[in-house]
């Protein structure tokens, strides 16, 4: 076997470390401010979900299942799921998890949709962003969990930050694809009537790309939910932490209860967000 020559060693690791140190020393104020804003949003959602009485939330979820997803049966199934989560004793934790997921998705969309739009409008942006998105999706999440910890400390904020990085690619990709595959003649027609690029975007491209963007939002939400267990490792309270504790103590039953609760939440969120992409015009 011929071993790889030592001469070509590139000290990428030490560069990254140096950059980290520099960022921590010089931009800690910035990260504190960002962290504060993110935290307020999560706490806002948490307050809302914990304030609304459980039976009203169950009713609302049932209503959403009935009106948005399809039949009364779906609504009733969703209500049973929510009721089971509560009866496992995980109502509060599931509400915290839900707040975390919703806040993460909120920020992911805030970044993702404009990125997707700019990617659709410029081939060069697309060329640059594509490998970045690939990296975000394939990079093991622990790799950026640790820097997130160093920037924001323990708790909800780094968990959300990591969740966002992991969950944002689908909505960016699908916004891009959605806009790029809009009927060319519809765009040409708008152009022919003298529409500005902004008018074309809001009158034609976004509305016609809506189903695709909605699928992206749905995917992003599901991936955010999948990150809650990992998020709990750095101190975000929620169902994920329950799973983690159960694993540590080898309490199979408890772990299963928490796991099933996550699955129930996932199914409900998936069906509801997916229904938005399916909504047909008359």
């Amino acid at each position, binding site marked *: 076997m011929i071993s790889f020559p030592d001469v070509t060693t590139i000290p990428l690791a030490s560069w990254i470390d140096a950059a980290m140190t520099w960022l921590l020393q010089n931009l800690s104020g910035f990260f504190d401010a960002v962290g504060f804003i993110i935290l307020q949003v999560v706490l806002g959602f948490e307050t809302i979900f914990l304030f609304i009485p459980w039976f009203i939330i169950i009713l609302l979820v049932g209503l959403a299942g009935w009106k948005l997803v399809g039949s009364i049966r779906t609504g009733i199934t969703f209500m049973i799921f929510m009721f089971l989560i509560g009866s496992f004793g995980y109502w509060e934790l599931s509400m915290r998890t839900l707040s975390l997921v919703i806040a993460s998705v909120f920020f992911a969309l805030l970044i993702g949709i404009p990125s997707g739009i700019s990617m659709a409008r410029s081939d060069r942006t697309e060329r640059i962003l594509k490998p970045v998105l690939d990296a975000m999706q394939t990079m093991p999440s622990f790799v950026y969990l640790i820097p997130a910890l160093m920037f924001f400390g323990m708790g909800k904020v780094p968990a959300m930050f990591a969740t966002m990085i992991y969950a944002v690619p689908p909505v960016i990709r699908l916004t891009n694809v959605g806009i790029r595959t809009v*009927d060319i*003649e*519809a765009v*040409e*027609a*708008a*152009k*022919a*009537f*003298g*529409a*500005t690029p902004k*008018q074309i975007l809001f*009158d*034609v491209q976004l*509305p*016609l790309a*809506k189903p695709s963007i909605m699928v992206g939002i749905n995917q992003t939400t599901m991936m955010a939910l999948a990150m809650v267990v990992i998020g709990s490792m750095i101190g975000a309270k929620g169902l994920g932490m329950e799973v983690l504790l159960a694993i540590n103590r080898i309490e199979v039953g408890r772990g299963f209860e928490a796991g099933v609760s996550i699955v129930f939440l996932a199914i409900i969120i998936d069906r509801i967000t997916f229904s938005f992409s399916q909504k047909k*015009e*008359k």
Partner: protein
Amino acid sequence: MSEKKEQPQIVIKNLWKIYGKDPKRIFTKKMQDLSKDEIQEKTGCIVGMRNISLEVERGQFYILMGLSGSGKSTLIRALIRLIKPTDGSIEINGKDITKMNSEQLLHFRRDTYGMVFQHYGLLPHQTVLDNAAYGLKIRGVPKGERYAKAMRTLETVGLKGWEDYYPGSLSGGMQQRVGLARALANDPDILLMDEPFSGLDPLIRRQMQDELVELQEKLQKTIVFVTHDLHEALKLGDQIAIMRNGELVQVGTPEDIVSNPADDYVQEFVRDASPAKVLTAGTIMESPKVLLYAWEGPKTALTLLRSNNRKAAFVVDKGHKLLGVVKESKLEQLLNLAEKPKGIPLSAIKKITSVTEDTIVEDLFSIVSENPYPIPVVDENNKFKGMVTTDQIFESIAPAADEGGDND
């Protein structure tokens, strides 16, 4: 065509479109002499339009025709700068649109054009009314006014009562009516139509064509219309430009194109065309050997007939108006009368069906089969212009008939 010398509304000069990397740099005047294939070989660039020059008069129905890849869609898009030409100029109402910046272009598009697309290009999430009003919305017309205008154009295209529906629930023909209404709502100077009827069923297509002809009679817009269907071109066009491989092959009236195809390509195109649908009585008529005047005596008339070996002839009055046809036997009878008439009396003249110069040959068939005489051709004042014989009719349609007729 108008007599007064007016600047044509659209003047295209030496227009080129070359696709490829950095075509501006590659493009040189030397290319003028190279063919499309030579250019592609030398530079690796694809030629979309090659040195096109043409003029469209105000109010003209101008057809761009060719097979797919002939550059007709590129040309119509260049007219509104959805495609930026590589070289050459396009003057519209005296302004060169190839030199406009994007801001000027937006305004020029808003004020000048209406465009209709092959696949309609409608907004599926908006109602028919909102779609029809879209061009006005872009212009910044207030809501009430643009809806009122859009309603009026929807009525014009026969879509009254459909304004609250969404395009998806309409048939293709109706969707294209929405597209047409949207283009007309702006009251544009120039109407661009890119294969608007190609996607429709033949019956609906024909109906839409008829309606467009009717509409154009009222509106008198300048229309540039792209099609690959010769029948459509012949039916609608005042002027037809045939394109191939990005070049203009022939420009002319429908009759020019059918009767004098410029080369084999055009020949091939018009092969399936039934000349009977294009040629008119005016183009194939000839002057009669003998024409009788009503005031001439029967004796003179008979001499004229016999010296020309004719058995009958048309009779006109002093104003050269057609009275009918008179037979040799009738004249002989007149001569045998005790009191010889001075002229040819009306009673001796048989009335006969006449046609005008723009009657198409196809419509002559039934008349020919009805009576044994040639068909007289008159103008709108019944003035005699010429006549069409059975032989001429068959001669005029002979080439297509040999090829097996039209079955498109």
